[in-house]
Every structure is written in structure tokens, then in C-alpha cells.
């Protein structure tokens, strides 16, 4: 059974059919790629999966359960995490705090515990900070832990998005263009980072990116989206040679 199972998901914005009958499966442990030209609907699909948008029709099942009506924050509790293409860091908070927030979200502490500095609150706080620092170390951000997130370079902000997404210990990680704005060296390193993440966090991934080399290298299976429709799917080699895919990308270049 697939961890994430989309059946005929459709959504339109006014005159734009952003997604049309999109069906897609992500099995536990896989890294699945989702590619397609600009405006194909990839981010929209992520928004539907995380509950930021409600599809007009179709079903999204996670771990065998239908997600209809499940709020975004509940989906996080079920083990979903994502990064944002248009960087949604907590800009005026420190790098460390950015990674502590998801841990806070899952901790039982209440404002009463905080206000009176109860021992349980202080204990949770220490635990959260330790875990956040370990994650920053993992993504090589420990040196900048005390800086404001908004002051980091784009490359570091992308890594911070990853660290924050991992902080809630997700089962499913949705990565929306993690390589956008990275230089060649950083992009090359990213594939290894993703492999290491899969290994250590036992996390399943759905990866959106325009960097073909990265997607081809990292993914077990690839879906191609064009004008809201899946036009091709399969192992990387097959998708690369699919005439329809070449056509879609050539069409974009022309």
C-alpha cells in the first residue's frame, strides 16, 4: 500500500485548470520526483497534499486514510512535512528558533508552564534546543544558529527549510525546489544530503525540482506534470526518453 495515494485530484483557479485528474502514488521509503515546466501545477499539488488548498474533486489518502477535511496542522501530526519554493522561514527569528518551532508544536507544554517556568517546561525547552542543534549540525548550519533566518544566504535558507522540515521527524517529506538558487557545487551536494536524510530519518520523499541531473540521480520514480496533467511516469531512464516529455520541455524552450 502506498504511503501517499492521490486519485484523480483536480483544482481550478478561475479560468486556469491547475490540476486535472492527477493520480500519483508514493510508496514508503521511495524518493519520488515530480517534474514539469513552469506553471505545470507542482506547487499547487503540494498545497493540496498539505491541506493549504482544497481540491475541487478527487481523493488524497495518506497511510490508508482519506485526508478530506483534515486541517494542515493535523496533517503535520500525521507525519507530513514540507519545504517551500518561495522560502517561508520565520524571518525575524533566529536560525535555532526556526528549527525549535516544529519541535514545540509537538511538545505538550502550555503557556502556564512557560509563564511560571515549571520544571517540565524547562526540560522540554532544553530537549528541543538540543535536538534543534543536532539538526543544524546535520545540515551544517550550527555556525549561524544565532543569526536571524532572514539574514542568511539563499543556499543556507534552503538548508534551513530542510532542517525545519526534518525537525518534526516526518514520515513523508515534500520538497518544493530545494535546489532553486543553489550554485552547482551546492546542488551536487544536495543529492547526497537527500540520500543521507533518507537513510537516517527513514523518510519518504516527494521531490519537485527543475534540476534534471538532481532529479534523475536522486529519484526512484518520476512523474511528469504538464498543464495540470500527468503526461508520463516511470523510472528515470524511461521518463527521460519519453517523446511526450521531451515535447513538453521543448515546447517550453521554444
Amino acid at each position: 500500500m502506498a504511503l501517499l495515494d492521490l486519485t484523480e485530484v483536480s483544482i481550478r483557479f478561475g479560468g486556469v485548470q491547475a490540476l486535472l485528474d492527477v493520480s500519483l502514488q508514493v510508496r514508503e521509503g521511495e524518493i519520488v520526483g515530480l517534474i514539469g515546466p513552469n506553471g505545470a501545477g507542482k506547487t499547487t499539488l503540494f498545497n493540496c497534499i498539505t491541506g493549504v488548498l482544497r481540491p475541487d474533486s478527487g481523493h488524497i489518502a495518506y497511510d490508508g486514510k482519506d485526508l478530506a477535511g483534515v486541517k494542515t496542522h493535523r496533517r503535520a501530526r500525521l507525519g507530513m512535512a514540507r519545504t517551500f519554493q518561495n522560502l517561508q522561514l520565520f524571518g525575524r527569528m533566529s536560525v535555532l528558533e526556526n528549527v525549535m518551532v516544529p519541535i514545540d508544536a509537538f511538545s505538550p507544554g502550555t503557556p502556564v508552564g512557560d509563564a511560571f517556568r515549571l520544571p517540565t517546561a524547562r526540560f522540554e525547552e532544553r530537549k528541543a534546543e538540543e535536538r534543534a542543534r543536532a539538526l543544524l549540525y546535520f545540515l551544517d548550519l550550527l555556525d549561524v544558529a544565532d543569526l536571524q533566518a532572514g539574514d542568511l544566504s539563499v543556499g543556507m535558507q534552503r538548508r534551513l527549510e530542510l532542517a525545519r522540515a526534518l525537525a518534526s521527524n516526518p514520515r513523508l517529506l515534500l520538497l518544493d525546489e530545494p535546489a532553486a538558487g543553489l550554485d552547482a557545487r551546492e546542488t551536487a551536494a544536495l543529492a547526497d544530503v537527500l540520500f543521507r536524510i533518507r537513510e537516517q530519518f527513514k523518510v519518504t520523499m516527494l521531490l519537485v525540482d527543475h534540476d534534471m541531473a538532481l532529479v534523475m540521480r536522486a529519484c526512484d520514480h518520476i512523474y511528469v506534470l504538464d498543464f495540470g496533467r500527468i503526461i508520463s511516469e516511470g523510472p528515470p531512464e524511461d521518463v527521460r526518453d519519453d517523446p511526450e516529455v521531451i515535447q513538453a520541455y521543448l515546447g517550453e524552450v521554444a
Partner: protein
Amino acid sequence: MSDLRLVRWTAVGVGVALGVLIPALLTDFLRTLAADAAIAGLIVLSLVLLTGMVGQISFCQYSFAAMGAFTVGSLVAGHHWDFWLALLVGVFFAAVVGVLVGFVALRLSGLFLAILTIGVALFFDRFVLAAGNWNSFSGGLSSWRPGRPSFFGIGLRGEYAFYLFAFGVLLAACLLVWNLRTGKTGRVLRAVRESEVAASTVGLNLTAWKLTAFGISAALAGLAGGLAAVRVGSVSAGSYDFLHSISIAAIAIVFGAGSIASAPAGGIFLIFGREALIDWTPFSTQWFDVILGAGLIFQLVHAPDGVVVDIERRITRRLRPPRQMPSESEQRSPERVPAEVG
């Protein structure tokens, strides 16, 4: 870092000492003003929480204060309740009203939230507190006259004693808000302010946290109202109207909702600034709001985050020069990251 802490806690210590000693030398009249300043400080503090942390503006904090004041007034003066119990109920009612307003405000921010809260304040002025509508609460045409309580056997009838009590409540409230701010609650609320979509995606229930913030903020304002009821000894609608809410919001913005120090500073400025205007200048109190408006413009241009926040930032910068951003090339490559997390 430790330099910074030293300076901060020294400043707090000096402030507390001055706050205790100076009023000891003042006349009783000035002591009542000092108590009023502490109470106004509590209301500024309620905005430090709501505006400073969650980024939500409110122009109805005195309506929440009125919940505290009129509950205390009607229960103590009308039903002979014990003051402390009445205060507790008043704070609770204020929090409930805060949560209700927060509920309506859930999807609003900025201008729309401002308009909504102005509407709430006017609803209180014109309906809830207006004579004839709900006299068992508002007292009708006469105002409630609750007497002052005693605090663990110490009578609070004397103006200095009452001032010390109000000052102590303000300090305790500042400490609690400080703890909230530096703990999980503060982090979570600031995250909601910075990016709602990211906050909900990492698992935060936006509704619950926003309502919590509104509830705590309104409770603080309600506490201020409960104290004001017995400070003055009479509770009347005019002291809690819409214009008071506007002034206090302006003060929170001018001084900076980002800092807890704005609470005592803002309270002092509101009460003594107005008094100084009457005593030392030919202007009447109406001009105070004009001065406040001018202050607002000055602050928006020269210290957009507020005067107190700006001063704090300058001190911090002097004590701790900003760390240089390590350049990307100095960074270790992520390939060499050891593998110890999971």
C-alpha cells in the same frame, strides 16, 4: 551575552528601586497617579503580548479592561462579594470576551482587524456600558463604588500602600510575560506572526494559538480594569471608552510593542505626560493626543519598531557587535557533515 544580561538586570533593579522609593517622597495625589501609571502599564503590557508577539493590533483593550472593572464593581459594590474573588471572575470574563473577539478576528489582520476592534470598542461604549441596556452590569446612571480590599491583612486604603500593590502586580505580570516570550509560547506566537502557512505546516494550530494570545492579552487588560475599579473607588463607563483604547494603542506603538520595558514607560508617559501638560503648560488635556499623534509620526520615521525597542537595540549593539555572516566559501561543505542525528 553575559554583559547584556548584567546591564538588563541592573536596569530592572534600578527601575524597581526607583519605582518603590520615588513615590514614597511624593504627595498622595501624585501617588494615585503613580498607581494609575502602573495600571495603564498593565494595559500596554497586554498589547506587548498581542501586538508585539502575534502581530495583531487591537483598539479595544479598554473594553477588556471594562469587563474586569465592571465585574469587580457590580460584584463587590452590588453583591458584597470579596474583592479577590470578584477580581478573579473579572479577569476570567475579560479573557472570555477576548477569546470571542479573537474568534471573530481569526482571519483578519492589519486594517480589517483594526476596524473590527474599533467596532468592538464602540459596541461596548454604546451598548454594553450605556445606561439602560444592562444596568446590573453597567450600574445604570450611577457608578459602582467598590471599596478597597486588604492584601494578606495589609490594608490598601493608603495611597502609598495601594501604589506598591499595583506596582507589584505590574512587575509580576511583566515577569510572567517575559517568561512567556522567552519560552515555547513566545516562539510559537512569533512563528505565527512571521508566516502563517509555515506555522500551520509545521503542526501549529493557528486558531488555538491566536485565541490563546487574545485570551491572555484580554485577561491582562481585565486585571488592570479590576485594579482601576478600586484605585478610583468608582467605576464609570467614561473611563473605559474607545478613545482610551486608541491612546493606549498609540502609546504601545510609539514605545514599541516589542519590548516589555514599554509597559512601565508607556504607563508613566500616559498618566504623567497628561498631568504635566495640564500643570506646566497652557494647553488642555485634549492636546495630549495631538502630541501623541506627532510622536507616532516621529517614531514611524525614526524608530519604526518603537522608541524603547530602538534604544534597547542600540544598547545591545554596543555591548555585542553583530556577528559577521560567515561567507559561503568558509562554510564546510555539507558532504563532510558527520552522521549522528536521527
